[in-house]
């Protein structure tokens, strides 16, 4: 009898083990091996060298001065903006009439439906130093010298464009999830608050936010995870493929080290560091947001 739940879970667990657990374990194993060069790839095995790869990665100045700040700061900015804009969009959607709401929802969803690769190229074109619409506008307004300015070479402007891209791509999910939450708030609660003289601002903070706390927790954690491993949106940007070392993040650094340099051991160690960082951040989040296991 006790075996029945496990029996029912078995297919799902088997799929998860195959698709998630095996690669994870393999990455962990490679990260403690001297898995470098095409020969190692060809043979599929390598010597164990303990924590040497981690020493190399953690001892690299680039990790602390470039890669980690790029990853953490950009992810934090992205998460905050995604959740705020997503919530505002949700509040807007809720206040619309059904027909208009459907139309707006479709518009919002289209931003989400665009694949990351396509979306990234669109933003690259928008900010193209010569032909981009933003560049044209900035030149017309006299904000940048005639002939344009290359925003892709500067770390701050580079990541500003990345943030716009990531937030634009990520906010629809937050908007829809929060909207679903908003629609579950009982009308009586809102009416009662109105009778007590609470304004929209007060109602938002006293009713909406506490009720939706679990929803916010979920979208924040998911956004954090997504925004930490941003890869496409950086790699495809001009200079983001390793040419400009100032804009490497954990994802692109790991990729450039593993595949370009055929240093899979080092690349895997970086990937493990990324996973560990994410776990720590998620744990801290959960602890601060839920003092008594509300989730």
């Amino acid at each position: 009898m006790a075996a029945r739940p496990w029996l029912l879970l078995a297919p799902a667990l088997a799929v998860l083990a195959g698709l998630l657990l095996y690669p994870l374990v393999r990455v962990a194993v490679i990260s403690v091996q001297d898995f470098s060069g095409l020969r190692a790839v060809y043979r599929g095995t390598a010597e164990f060298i303990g924590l040497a790869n981690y020493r190399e990665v953690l001892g690299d100045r680039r990790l602390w001065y470039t890669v980690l700040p790029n990853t953490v700061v950009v992810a934090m900015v992205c998460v905050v903006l995604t959740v705020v804009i997503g919530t505002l969009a949700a509040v807007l959607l809720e206040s619309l009439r059904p027909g208009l709401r459907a139309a707006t929802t479709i518009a919002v969803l289209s931003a989400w439906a665009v694949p990351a690769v396509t979306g990234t190229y669109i933003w690259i074109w928008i900010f193209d130093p010569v032909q981009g619409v933003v560049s044209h506008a900035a030149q017309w307004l006299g904000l940048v010298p005639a002939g344009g300015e290359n925003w892709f070479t500067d770390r701050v402007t580079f990541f500003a464009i990345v943030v716009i891209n990531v937030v634009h791509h990520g906010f629809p999910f937050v908007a829809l999830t929060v909207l679903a939450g908003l629609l579950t708030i009982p009308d009586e609660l809102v009416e009662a608050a109105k009778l007590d003289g609470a304004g929209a601002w007060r109602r938002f903070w006293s009713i909406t936010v506490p009720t939706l706390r679990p929803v916010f927790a979920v979208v924040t954690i998911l956004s954090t995870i997504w925004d930490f491993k941003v890869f496409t949106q950086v790699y495809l940007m001009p200079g983001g493929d390793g040419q400009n070392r100032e804009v490497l993040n954990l994802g692109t650094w790991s990729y450039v080290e593993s595949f370009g340099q055929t240093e899979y051991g080092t690349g895997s160690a970086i990937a493990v560091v990324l996973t560990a960082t994410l776990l720590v951040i998620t744990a801290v989040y959960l602890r601060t947001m839920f003092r008594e296991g509300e989730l």
Partner: protein
Amino acid sequence: MSAHRLSIRLAGLAVAAATALAVTGCGDDSSSNSNAAQSGSGKTLTVWIMEGTNPDATPFFDQVKAEFKRETGADVNVQFVPWSAAHDKFVSAVGGGETPDVAEFGTTWTPEFGEAGILAELTERVKGSGVSDDLVDSLVAAGEVDGKLYGMPWYAGVRSVIYRTDVFEELGLQPPTSWDEWLTVATKIKEAKPDLVAMPVAGNNEYGVYPFIWGAGGKIAVQEGGKWRSTLDSEQARRGIEFYTSLATKHGLSSPAAETWKETDLKDNFVQGKLAMMISGSWTPKAILEAAPQLQGKIGAFPIPGEKSGISPSFVGGSHLAVFEKSQQGDLAWQFVQMMTSGRFASEWATQSSYFPGLKSLLAKSISAPDPLIAPFARQMKDGGETVPVTPVYGKVQAKKTVPSMLQAILSGSKTVEQATADAAAEMTAEMQG
């Protein structure tokens, strides 16, 4: 693994189908087909070819497939791989054990994969085929590790300067023959045509800067006592890099956008009529004219000028055809490689793709061609051809983007030429010795 099994199963099906055809008498039983070369009957050869070399490669490979089928009875499955993704794709294919039988390799990758034991050594086969003496030397050298050849030279290309003849004519300018003249010409274009980028300096294109390093008498790296050491920080190399980047930083003849341009961005912008000159490959004029027919008769080429006179050397790049060590059909694969790299198909491919063939006897014909969009490149190839350091680790240096990174740092002003070259040389030396 599964794909492998699938291909075996498909091969089995093909055999069954062939047998059925033979039994029902529908098979092509012309006498030429019944010789011993038919050993490939029912087999399928998987071939990876780089995409875009030949603007429309499908008709060409349809002919190749038909001919190969006629000669050997085997089918050829050609898959096109984009250049930019190819190196990664080869590495993952090796990791997953899903390599094809034959693949086109960029000449700078062949030593890397050959040394790792992934490619079959072709030295004996090439000797046996009797074309050894006819192969273009720089392409042979690029495919060798310790005297063992891993890639059969297929085609080659070289970069020179492509320019707008209409702009030059209008302003009464002549193609420059020294760096000083080049600067003067570009400056005049900039003054007369401020909307055109006179001479773009593409930050993400290492092949654009090499001619200046070599033209000033410098080298990328030298081998001393079996160890490679980068000489990007030598006085000559610095002088070349200084001149090239100063076109953008000091003289404003480039565009800020070019700081992150790749070679393909140069071509795209030229096609849109925004550039007066660019350093570009011998294979691009045809593609440019196809994309922008209005430029017909308005583009020309000249070899990259030397510092004082003559020609600045330019990288001779190209492709090998290589056979994978794991291929179960080595003989058939070699037959395919031979067919592609000699005779009719070799010269047709060269003509269609505007590359130079890998055989001296065929190259000679191209050099004497009167075409103004071929002859300057042929001269560059003959009199000003160079190669990057021939060592398996140079592929890693390229993957690390050491040189593009240096260029971008100088162009965006974040480093001086001295600092950027010193950093790049240190990184490259560490990589080559590491």
